[in-house]
């Protein structure tokens, strides 16, 4: 049974990577190849490493493992690929395969995954982060015991990042009439690091509807990205039940909404959960997707110049590009920066494993923000926001970073 599963996973991987005809279209768009330009860093390189691995041309050595982990899962390559080879899905599936083979995910992902699985722990973490010390995460996080605020940022940067969404989620077809029961899905990152943005989101929603706040579990992205599929599925089931009576479920975190929209796909072969999962995924809406449909107009207009960093999980993951920009155009002087949809390098475990590379990617982002002349960079994902804050600090006050709810 277990072997059958493994074989199936491997077959899934093989069928994806064998679609790559090695043309090289992905080379110029891969943010990692942009800062470390050897073949193995590129999407083409990784797809062919995996292909050789599944065909016995390469052995599973530590550097092969490192190569498949060296991917932001940002989907820039998928978008540009003429054959739309799903490099991100292949990398996730092969990570899961390795995790199964080696008896589970790496210790550090397990620790983080376990912590996020528990809502009590998440709540505690959002307070003092004592729990972080408890589970020993401090040793994994660079600068572990530095002041709280900084640690919190580092902490979240340590797990998900632009990751793990599979193919682009279709736009929500839900209508937003006033009689619909709206619920708010509170993401761990938002809860722990940006509670003020959460209040703003709720305030915005209350101008339209009466959102129900549900004590939900983590969306499971960090788990599924790092070979903890079992935990991911368990949490998904509980969340499905928690939101059973809502018509619309809104998240102000692009990673959460993207992941939740994909939950249906993970249950497609599970007769017991298939329908419920489909119904759940169908009612997920990203905040700006909802606001655009509801005809929301920003509460105020600022004279500040604003630019937008498009989270991978929002634009490339859900095809939501226009809605946040339209809202920002109504909220201030909007300018589009170069490379607005390029990954910010905040990919979590990535930040720990490859701090230099991550910093180089973020530096390019910072330069683009500075060149745009914007005073505020806005985004809609807590991990991106952590990155944007780092960039803002480094720019020496040239710009500030904000969650979109704080400005519209």
């Amino acid at each position, binding site marked *: 049974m277990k072997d059958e599963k493994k074989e199936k996973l491997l077959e899934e991987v093989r069928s994806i990577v064998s*679609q790559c*005809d*090695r*043309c*090289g*279209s992905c*080379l*110029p768009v891969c943010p990692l190849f942009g800062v470390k*330009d*050897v*073949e*193995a860093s590129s999407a083409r*390189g990784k797809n*062919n*490493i995996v*292909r*050789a691995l599944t*065909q*016995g*041309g*390469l052995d599973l*050595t530590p*550097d*092969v493992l490192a*190569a498949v982990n060296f991917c932001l899962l940002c989907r820039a390559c998928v978008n540009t690929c*003429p*054959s*739309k080879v799903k490099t991100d899905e292949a990398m996730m599936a092969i990570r899961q395969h390795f995790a199964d083979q080696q008896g589970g995910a790496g210790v550090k992902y397990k620790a983080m995954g376990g912590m996020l699985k528990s809502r009590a722990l998440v709540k505690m973490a959002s307070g003092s982060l004592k729990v972080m010390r408890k589970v020993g995460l401090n040793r994994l996080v660079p600068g572990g015991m530095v002041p709280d605020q900084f640690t919190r940022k580092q902490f979240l940067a340590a797990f998900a990042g632009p990751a793990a969404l599979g193919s682009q989620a279709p736009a929500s077809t839900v209508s937003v009439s006033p009689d619909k029961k709206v619920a708010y899905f509170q993401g761990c990152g938002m809860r722990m690091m940006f509670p003020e943005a959460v209040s703003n989101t709720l305030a915005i929603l209350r101008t339209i509807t009466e959102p129900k706040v549900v004590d939900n579990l983590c969306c499971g992205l960090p788990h599924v990205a790092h070979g903890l599929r079992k935990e991911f599925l368990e949490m998904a089931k509980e969340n499905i039940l928690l939101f059973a009576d809502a018509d619309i479920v809104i998240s102000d975190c692009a990673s959460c909404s993207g992941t939740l929209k994909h939950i249906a796909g993970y249950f497609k072969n599970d007769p017991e959960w298939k329908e419920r999962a489909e119904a759940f995924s169908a009612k997920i809406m990203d905040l700006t997707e909802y606001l655009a449909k509801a005809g929301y107009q920003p509460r105020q207009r600022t004279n500040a110049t604003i630019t937008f960093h498009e989270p991978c999980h929002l634009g490339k993951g859900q095809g939501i590009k226009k809605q946040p920009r339209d809202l920002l155009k109504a909220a201030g002087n909007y300018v589009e920066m170069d490379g607005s949809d390029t990954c910010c390098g905040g990919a979590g475990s990535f930040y720990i494993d490859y701090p230099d590379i991550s910093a180089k990617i973020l530096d390019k982002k910072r330069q683009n923000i500075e060149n745009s002349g914007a005073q505020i960079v806005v985004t809609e994902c807590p991990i991106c926001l952590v990155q944007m804050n780092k960039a803002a600090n480094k720019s020496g006050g040239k710009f500030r970073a904000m969650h979109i709810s704080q400005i519209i």
Partner: protein
Amino acid sequence: MITNEIKEKIRAIVGPENTLDSNLDRFGYSYDSSFIALLPANKPDLVVRPLTTAEVSAVMKIANENNIPVTARGAASGRTGGSIPLSGGISLSLDRMTNIIELDEQNMMVTVEAGVRTIDLYNFCAEKGLFYPPDPASWKFSTIGGNVAENAGGMRAVKYGVTANYVMGLEVVLADGTILQTGGKAIKNVTGYNLTSLFTGSEGTLGIITKIILRLIPMPKVRNTLQLMFPSLDDACATIHKMLQAGIVPASAELMDKIGLQAVARHRKIDIDPATEACVVIEIDADDEANLEKQAQQISAIAREFHVSELRIAKTFQESEDIWAIRRGLSSAVGAMAPTRFGEDISVPRSEFPEMVRRIRKISEKYDLVIAVYGHAGDGNLHPSVLCDLTIPGEEERVHKAVDEIFAEALAVGGTLSGEHGIGITKRPYITNALGEAGVNALKAVKQAFDPKGILNPGKIW
């Protein structure tokens, strides 16, 4: 095998971070975009990534002294195996040499290093109103060095020619490390043999191209796109011929057959009339709108003469993009039709294009294989794609026979094996048929003169 002592010497030249010899890294430099099997991997013993011509020269000197094979590499986007290090040795990756050295606006020439991406070169020149026309399908990721080494073509060849038509001079590092300059900025130049032409398209077998002087032309001011559907392939080709004879030269004239067209239709979820046998996408350019409009009307008139069933002249930039998306999506849509695709690159006299397509149809029936045909009808370069599943018993043999016959028929109508991809490894078995013994011997004599030890890209062309 390269000894540690030699590796150390090379590391000292290019820096340790620019020589890669782990198994995983060597694997990364073992393939290109051809259908040469990924495994067993043709791994180099060492990947070397020089930054300057002097470094290339020093590395070549060591390689030559020690009989180490050297295969140059740009983006490894080639279709015939040109950059695959078939005999191991050194994969000389020139992708760090990315300087645009000079833009000489007065002479309208640009001097670049080999590793510059073609699109970067194009954009750099376009900003100054200058135009570098060759646009191989890979131009967004391939390097100019690779384009020159393969003499890459592209869609604009019908009006503007191929890479070779723009190469004015080269800096080449020879097998023994000697640095040679060929050609230059003088437009008329008959001093000695035309070595610039010789190295252009030499597929890395005669020397390592490190710098290139390219000629530019003024950028056309306006462009537009037309889409023409025909119920017969002959009428589609006749339209193109009549157009060219009438002096209307489009920037590109791309033709796709029904198989390709329906593949794109399925892929992009659009409806295309099943009665359509051929689709032609034409790009026109001019210095002003009036001239552009005149060309569009002239082409429309000719197309109607030849029973065009649907004629679309793009009204907006977006509509142009939509039309081109059909052409750009073609290769992958066709590729998605079967587990394996053998894409060929034959080139025939323009007048023989419809005849060649007919002959390919016959081969397709004879061997019971789906063969999609598309290509640059304006210049006679066509890409038959044999679609197959090699896991079906006997299929591989039928595919090989079909490909053999396609090449034979291309030669029979006065054409050749490759229009723009080169010979590399994949077309090597057919070279004598195309050039004859005398032709191949002449190539070998040239090779012997420049690379007596045979260290440069061994195993290619013949």
